[in-house]
């Protein structure tokens, strides 16, 4: 331990030389930016850069085109034109030249004297950057050097700094790091006019960045077909200055890693001071730079394991800290005591791609801050090839998978699992790490949380190869008979039950054939079309055992069939007897008042802009004003505000949403009903007044913030801060759990006298579609904090939620009055999701219990802070 410490000190001391004559620390960030769009994915096989293209476009509205960057890790030596040995062992130094003239000087002063360059080249680019639409600033010329430090130079470096005790290779790492610092200091930071900077210098990894959007990087440097195991991209939203430099864009690098960041530190100066005391001086003056400097310090200088690095970044606090095992507590306490000044404070989310050359690993890491103030989604897909994804918005994950699947049939457009991290928690630590291990050809992808717990994916399932022609299955007659029977008797539910029961025994071909038949039947007439949509929607919404078939593949087949049925609907202007009408972006100007018999407007939202005057949400409002009341909107790719703007008294309006809808869905609705046949994103149902919202999946952050009412059903989990400041009479059923801060400052009156409440069931579905209890119905440290009204009804038969989790509430016994109040909502919940009250919710460990044994009520108590006398009110 001591030896390690003194080594760390020696490295730190060796850097002091670099810092001579530097100006005082910047008192604030010079580069300022808002939240940004970030995406990263890691694949067991190298994939080409074009796949970062689509998700980057999806996140345009999280950037403003003033800074975009990508990083890639794990290349093929052949593609780079070097030997495998050079690729694995040489540093891949990439220098961005803003001024062509300085290349010679850099080489003469910093490359040739110290390094043996095995390969040097200018990165190929397209001829004229203006050929890329919207790219206004010429990206830098990038020179790449595959190089090693000269032996005598390294020896001198080790001698001078007393680094004999560390391996020469690690000393070489440090030399490269310091050499690049000198280049950046001389050619970037110290100059009024910035001339050049080192983009990256790690092994088998690279960073490229420009003043523009991330996908323009891919196009300009011709990376569409360039393959790598890991890609990350960043859309930046800088808000200051009229002149931007690519140096300020993300990603930033320590040595073998690249980091992108979404967020903003409040303690930038304190972190800089902490780094300065350890011989590190920021040169690019952004949050992101200091983040990676912290990571590099803890990783390479202090040699911390990843878990401790994550703890130093996002400390475990409150109830979560108390819930740690004693040994962990001791270590974490020490880490926090030592590094809290360097811990970034404020909203942030990091994605880190790194090469671990000493362990022959590559990793993609996502870390969220303790309070989970930035959006984040993780996903994984297993199979013949595996992929892990981390993103700020789910639709970027969808876009990536879609792009991959269209090129390589081994990928499926839908992942096996999607989830959020709970920041600074004892459950997952707020961080997930995707690792690919081993040598080429036998790479396997695993995902673990901060504590090393593996994310399980159902084993033995295979993807559907959609390129195979569908043939008539042996059981065709039986199935066809059943289909005909259910269609003719208008019984979608019974057909769904039939397929649900049979599907585990079917192969993909049979299921696809069955869906094809449903599609055929849908074309017969409106009644049949309605049944087809209903049964496919049920198959999409419910959970069931798919046996050896991937749930993702099944969903993909269902959604494709649905989309085909939707898109084969007569266009709005056509004459037809059908009550369904179709419209899309290209034909939006054809929108007209519903004519006699026209009832349901099907909108393909995919090409509508995600926000602004022409977004699909406004289009729906327009259609509503023309008299349309029933909408099916599909093809969502993150388009925002669905259902907003229809105004009050919109009873009778219903919108069914398919695809990946964006933020603020149903925010403000006052009467209408929206059903989201997928997971939904952040800021759902804000200020919602009346109406009904059903989400057949998870919901994101700040769900129903400031809501006044409405009836809401969520099949899965809610992320952080649901129902904060909700008032009035919201009636909400969440079948999963919430990350934290549920119903803070809840003010929804007396639930037994018309006020509001939340039912939290704390359950989930296993891979076979069976209902099981989550480890705890509520893992967060804050439940119902500062609430003055309303109630939480939580299914907690094992009494796992403790009083310490409440701050403003108390547990009371569930009375028959309470049960009568919530029962109708649980019944509707049963109708919607198939979650049975009698067979699922009231059954504990196989035994049927009474409601009062299963459910607990949390109600508000009069807190002195709420009734006291000090005040601050506008």
């Amino acid at each position, binding site marked *: 331990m001591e030896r390690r410490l003194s080594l760390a000190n020696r490295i730190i001391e060796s850097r002091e030389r670099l810092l001579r004559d530097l100006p005082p620390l910047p008192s604030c960030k010079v580069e300022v930016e808002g939240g940004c769009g970030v995406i990263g994915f890691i694949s067991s096989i190298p994939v080409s850069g074009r796949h970062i293209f689509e998700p980057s476009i999806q996140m345009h509205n999280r950037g403003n085109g003033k800074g975009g960057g990508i990083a890639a890790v794990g290349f093929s030596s052949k593609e780079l034109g070097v030997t495998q040995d050079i690729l694995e062992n040489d540093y891949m130094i990439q220098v961005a030249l803003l001024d062509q003239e300085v290349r010679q000087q850099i080489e003469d002063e910093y490359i040739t004297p110290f390094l043996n360059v095995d390969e040097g080249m200018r990165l190929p680019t397209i001829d004229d950057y203006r050929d890329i639409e919207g790219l206004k600033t010429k990206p830098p010329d990038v020179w790449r050097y595959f190089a090693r430090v000269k032996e005598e130079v390294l020896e001198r470096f080790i001698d001078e700094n007393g680094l004999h005790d560390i391996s020469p290779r690690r000393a070489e790492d440090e030399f490269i790091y310091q050499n690049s610092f000198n280049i950046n200091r001389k050619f970037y930071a110290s100059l009024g006019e910035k001339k050049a900077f080192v983009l990256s210098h790690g092994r088998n990894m690279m960073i490229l960045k420009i003043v523009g959007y991330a996908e323009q990087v891919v196009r300009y440097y011709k990376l569409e077909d360039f393959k790598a195991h890991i890609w990350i991209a960043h859309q930046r939203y800088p808000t*200051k200055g009229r002149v931007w430099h690519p140096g300020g864009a993300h990603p930033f690098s320590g040595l073998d890693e690249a980091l992108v960041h979404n967020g903003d530190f409040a303690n930038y100066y304190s972190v800089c001071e902490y780094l300065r005391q350890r011989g590190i001086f920021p040169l690019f003056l952004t949050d992101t730079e200091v983040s990676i400097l912290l990571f590099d310090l803890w990783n390479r200088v202090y040699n911390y394991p990843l878990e401790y690095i994550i703890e130093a970044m996002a400390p475990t606090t409150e109830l979560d800290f108390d819930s740690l095992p004693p040994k962990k507590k001791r270590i974490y306490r020490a880490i926090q005591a030592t590094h809290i000044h360097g811990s970034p404070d404020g909203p942030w989310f990091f994605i880190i791609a790194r090469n671990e050359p000493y362990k022959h690993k590559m990793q993609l890491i996502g870390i969220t801050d303790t309070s989970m103030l930035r959006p984040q989604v993780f996903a994984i897909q297993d199979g013949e090839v595996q992929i892990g994804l981390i993103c700020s918005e789910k639709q970027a994950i969808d876009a990536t998978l879609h792009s991959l699947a269209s090129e390589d049939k081994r990928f499926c457009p839908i992942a096996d699992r999607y989830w959020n991290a709970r920041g600074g928690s004892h459950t997952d630590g707020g961080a997930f790490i995707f690792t690919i291990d081993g040598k080429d050809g036998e790479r396997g992808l695993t995902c673990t949380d901060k504590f090393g717990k593996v994310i399980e994916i159902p084993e033995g399932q295979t993807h559907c190869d959609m390129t195979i022609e569908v043939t008539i299955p042996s059981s065709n007659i039986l199935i066809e008979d059943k289909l005909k029977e259910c269609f003719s008797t208008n019984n979608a539910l019974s057909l769904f039950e039939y397929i649900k029961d049979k599907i585990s025994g079917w192969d993909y071909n049979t299921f696809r054939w069955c869906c094809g038949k449903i599609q055929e039947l849908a074309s017969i007439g409106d009644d049949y079309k309605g049944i087809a949509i209903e049964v496919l929607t049920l198959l999409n919404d419910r959970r069931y055992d798919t046996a050896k078939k991937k749930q993702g593949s099944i969903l993909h087949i269902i959604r494709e069939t649905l989309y085909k049925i939707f898109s084969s609907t007569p266009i709005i202007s056509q004459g037809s007897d059908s009550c369904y009408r179709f419209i899309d972006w290209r034909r939006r100007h054809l929108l007209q008042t519903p004519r006699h018999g026209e009832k349901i407007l099907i909108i393909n939202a995919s090409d509508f802009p995600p926000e602004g005057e022409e977004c699909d949400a406004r289009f729906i409002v327009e259609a509503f004003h023309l008299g349309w009341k029933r909408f099916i909107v599909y093809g969502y790719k993150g388009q925002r505000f669905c259902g907003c703007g229809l105004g009050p008294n919109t009873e009778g309006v219903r919108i069914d949403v398919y695809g990946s809808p964006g933020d603020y869905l149903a925010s403000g609705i006052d009467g209408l009903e929206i059903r989201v046949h997928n997971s939904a994103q952040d800021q759902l149902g804000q200020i919602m007044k009346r109406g009904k919202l059903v989400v057949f999946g998870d919901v994101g952050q700040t769900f129903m913030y400031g809501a006044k009412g409405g009836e809401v059903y969520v099949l899965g989990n809610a992320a952080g*801060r649901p129902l904060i400041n909700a008032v*009035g009479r919201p009636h909400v059923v969440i079948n999963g759990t919430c990350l934290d801060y549920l119903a803070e400052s809840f003010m929804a009156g007396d639930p037994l006298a018309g006020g509001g409440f939340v039912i939290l069931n704390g359950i989930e579905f296993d891979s076979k579609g069976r209902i099981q209890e989550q480890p705890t119905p509520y893992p967060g440290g804050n439940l119902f904090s500062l609430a003055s009204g309303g109630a939480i009804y939580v299914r907690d038969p094992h009494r796992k939620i403790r009083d310490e989790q409440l701050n403003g509430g108390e547990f009371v016994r569930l009375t028959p009055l309470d049960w009568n109040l919530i029962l109708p909502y649980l019944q509707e919940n049963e109708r919607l999701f198939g979650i049975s009250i009698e067979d699922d919710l009231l059954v504990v460990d196989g035994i049927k219990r009474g409601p009062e044994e299963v459910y607990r009520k949390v109600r508000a108590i009069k807190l002195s802070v*709420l*009734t006291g006398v000090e005040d601050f009110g506008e």
Partner: protein
Amino acid sequence: MNQEGTSKTGRNFRCEDLMRNKDGSVVKRAPSRFRNAIAKYIVRRTQGCSVCGTCIRVCPFGVHEYAGKKLARPREHLCIGPSCARCIKECPNGALSLVSNPLYETLGDCRWTNDLITSTWFEAETGEVPPNHMEYRVGDSGGGFDRLRFRFPKEESGKYRTDGEVSTSIQLNKRRDGRPEISIDIPMYGGGMSFGSISLPIMLGRAKAAKVWNTFTCTGEGGYPEELSPYDDHVITQVATGLFGVREQTIQRVRVVEFKYAQGAKPGLGGHLLGDKVTQDVASMREAVTGSSLFSPFPFHSVYSVEDHKKHVDWIKEINPRALIAVKVSTPTDIDMVAVGSYYAGAHIIHLDGSYGGTGAAPDIAKKNIAMPIEYAIPKVHKFLIEEGIREEMTLIASGGIRTAYDAAKAIALGADGVVLGTTELVALECVRCGNCESGRGCARGIATTDRELSQLVDVEWAAQRLINLYSAWHTQFVDILNRLGMKSIQELVGRTDCLIHLDYVENRIEVDRGEG
């Protein structure tokens, strides 16, 4: 119904016919609602008075008047004191005497001096510029606007003009983004004060006055009382962190929606309406629990970055496609960045709320101690927006301690387009700045209260007229200032720091002090 009219200052503005006098002016006398207004001087009349009427005849200010066959108690608050004293000198019976009012000395503080308070009352009562014996332009704080003066050219310099029309109107949408171009006739509008922090008659009075002067008032964060609906076009719906009373309907019915991120008087503290003020009416408007304190968190739980902010703005724009978006922020040291961020997020108005404002409800420890003083923040933002090349597309509004027409004009000369008034309007409605806005059922003068009985202390028509008068008095002063600076429009004054001097940097202070305001 709106119609073009001409005020006696010779400018055009639209106002309701009903509110207008025959001469087109909107001013009507709105005397104190209390029997005895607080006055600077006490005028005593002894038994020796013979009711000869001499005092009535000689007093130019209407202090003396008949009450039937007797003389009424002198309206002392109109008396200008020893510099006149004509009634005393000319009283044949020596029955009148004049002394300073000891109560007057207890009124006010250094920011809001007794003279500022009573001159604001004067403006609200008469609609006229206060007489010179009252210091109605600056306070006595020793800093801020109180150390700034206008550098007026001498009358004979030729710049001075009294001819022609002077415009005091400003544009609220300069983005040319297809949303309505809304202009207001005076460079100011009413700040956010919620139903809960103030009473309904006060809200209505503010809205009526806003309509008459073609400007706006703001709901604050406490819902949108239905009674305000006739004034929808002159109301700003505030969307603040507690989202109290904010519904699609309240967003859709107005022409301007304001996001309140923070208040300059208490940045980072959110809002907190005490349980006692949460009466049944307040609770039902906000759909909360009667008697329980109401928190507005800090900050918006859904906005932690500028791109979240953009999304937030986009949302409101989606709900109301004709609304302009104002963004109210306090003044941290990086306020310039916040302003630019708001521009990129698509806002039309950036509203900087400095540290001097705040009613009694803002904690003393926060007031003046956290945010940057507004006179620093305005030029910082103004210059930065110019550097960024976007100043012409943003409307910059300042608030936080704008007490007088001169404060407002100075804020504009520092770089703002206009100002927002909060406390000043309450003072015009006879607030005495006792600073107990928050406690119990609130204000003893029936302003910052929602107690049904206390609310009855204020009549809506009276409140509206007081504010109309205040605006008129300020308008007269704006026109005067612009005339003296040789400008035809208030928009010419924006950013003209060369028209200002700071007393700290002036050698011949006496000369300046003699100059005005």
